[in-house]
């Protein structure tokens, strides 16, 4: 119990354990709030900025830990070997051409059908996979 009632029936924080718990809860809340406001997050001491859709603004800061963090924001609990196959392909292509590959190419080169890609990345190849792979948000009439 974190709170007890005093004689008048008012709630009162119970001792030092309660205090620490409350303070840490508030701190977590403030941290989360700051993250939302500044649209950035921290992984292994690196501050990563994202745009309002959660795409990282500087693709050079991407690493595997960042990918794992971004995966959680796109309904991907764990990055398996299959996920990495897609992510690595996207990154290699991006490194070479400065743009994400066309979806058709992703399916052909990785051997996954579009349906399988959606199973791996529920929010889809562009919004989900590209975001986790640290590519910028697609632009133009795509």
């Amino acid at each position: 119990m974190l709170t007890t009632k005093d004689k008048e029936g008012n709630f009162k924080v119970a001792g030092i354990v309660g205090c620490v718990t409350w303070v840490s809860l508030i701190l977590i809340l403030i941290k989360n709030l700051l993250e939302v406001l500044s649209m950035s997050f921290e992984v292994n001491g690196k501050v990563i900025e994202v745009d309002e859709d959660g795409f990282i603004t500087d693709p050079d800061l991407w690493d595997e830990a960042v990918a794992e963090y971004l995966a959680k924001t796109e309904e991907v609990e764990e990055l398996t070997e299959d996920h990495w196959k897609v992510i690595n392909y996207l990154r290699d292509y991006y490194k070479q051409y400065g743009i994400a590959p066309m979806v058709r190419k992703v399916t052909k080169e990785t051997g996954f059908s579009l349906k399988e890609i959606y199973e791996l990345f529920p929010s889809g190849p562009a919004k989900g996979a590209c975001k986790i792979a640290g590519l910028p948000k697609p632009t133009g009439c795509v």
Partner: protein
Amino acid sequence: MINGKHLKPRDMGKPADQLTKIDRLMPLPGPFDKLDTAPEFKEPKEEWREKYCTTLDGFIAIDTLKRPETKEEEEEFVRKFLQGLGKMLSEETNRGIIQPLKLSIEYCAKCNTCSEACHIFQSTEGHELYRPIYRSEVLRKIVKKYFTKSGRLLGGLVGADIDLNWETVARLGELSYRCNLCRRCAQTCPLGLDNGLLAREIRKIFSQELGIAPKALHEKGTELQLKTGSSTGLTKPAFLDIIEFLEEDLEEKTGKKIKIPIDKEGADILLIHNAGEYMSWPENPMAFAILFEEAGLDWTLSSDLLGYDNVNYGLFYDDGQAKKIALKQFEAARKLGVKRIVLGECGHAHKAAVVTADRMTYGANKVPVESFLPILRDIIKDNRLKLDPSKNNFPVTLHDPCNVVRQMGIVKPQRDILKAVAPQFWEMTPHGVYNYCCGGGSGFAIMNSFNFPEWRKNVSVRMKVKQILEVFQDTLEDASIPKYICAPCSNCKGSMRDILEHYQLTAKYNVQYAGIVELVVNALADLDRPFFEFLEE
């Protein structure tokens, strides 16, 4: 918050956290007739309210319109807007537009014929904010107050009853992005006045004078295109890689071995696609290659900067950007020495390159520009393709891109094509020059910041959803029958994809979409298997 039925133009300057909200939506036909028409839109987030302009209807279209931090910044913003308004009204600085602009400002009789024509006004069951002349009236009041003697002297007595402050201007800017610029209102106006033109003029002042435009159109649109060659960021090496891939894929799909011509000097036709096709709908450029080769046309693509992306988002918000892009596209064609530019399936590119850019240069700088539609119609009419229309034996409807029909009058060729390849072709009601916008027009299909997509998916696309449900009403609920929306425009296709996903029309009812060339290729007699993947299962 002022109710949608009682909102007046003079309210635009009033202090309020949010001026008004959408309280009702137009009912949709079955199977969506049970949908709630009293929408529950999410409140804009607190941090959005602090930083951006959410005080119009709670939605944000302009993701670069930030609240000023000081009083000086606020005043500077209003001063610059008035300066831009002055330029808008001057023949020196707005020569090409001034005549229809002045007519539209001065002659409105407020008969409201245009309101009936506007899909956004209708979709919100007549919300005053979205009445086509509401925006124009606000603009008129400001012009009256600051640019006429009577307005300066007599103010409210002569209709100049509006407070001009940061909020008024910012709201007006937002409101200029609640119009698809489809110009259905202009078409119906008995006096020929154009509310769409006024909405675009406001966007122009924001971009050209205040340096404010949605990122998707400017920073990630025209600027990216001028820098990399395409608003998709597609570079020349990536473009060449894609073409190679298309050739392989095309052979696998159809058994046809085609070398797609690139940078062929002196060709008759330079074909330019919307580069979004390469990224999202590669079957479209593939289908073009098949048809142009089968018909024996002398054609080429260009890998030159701005030679492989026909888009020109400047058309939506900025004359200067529009001109820069149009001239570079002409340059790419001139370098190759082609006889003409032919535009692929992109509506706004049609209007930008054929109509708008027509007055941007002259003489030897100019290259003739055409739509692909009459060319494809002639190919079919001359029997240069062996067709078996029974391969397309499913219901097909045509979504007319506004820029192709209403803005340019190209109406019959696409129908002649469909009649030759689609035995079950059904027109939407209304169609042709009286069509309704897909809801994604004037850049909306690609503007996805903050809560703007929520507005688009419920409001601006609504009339098109209604038309789709109506045209397919007989077969809609039978998911064994594919139903095809032919939308020969990349932007419209983006909007269709949005609609089909949001209303689950593909998942539940097997409604499909793509362009017109894919339908023609699917009807080619010599193909062993269907060109459309949805026919394969």
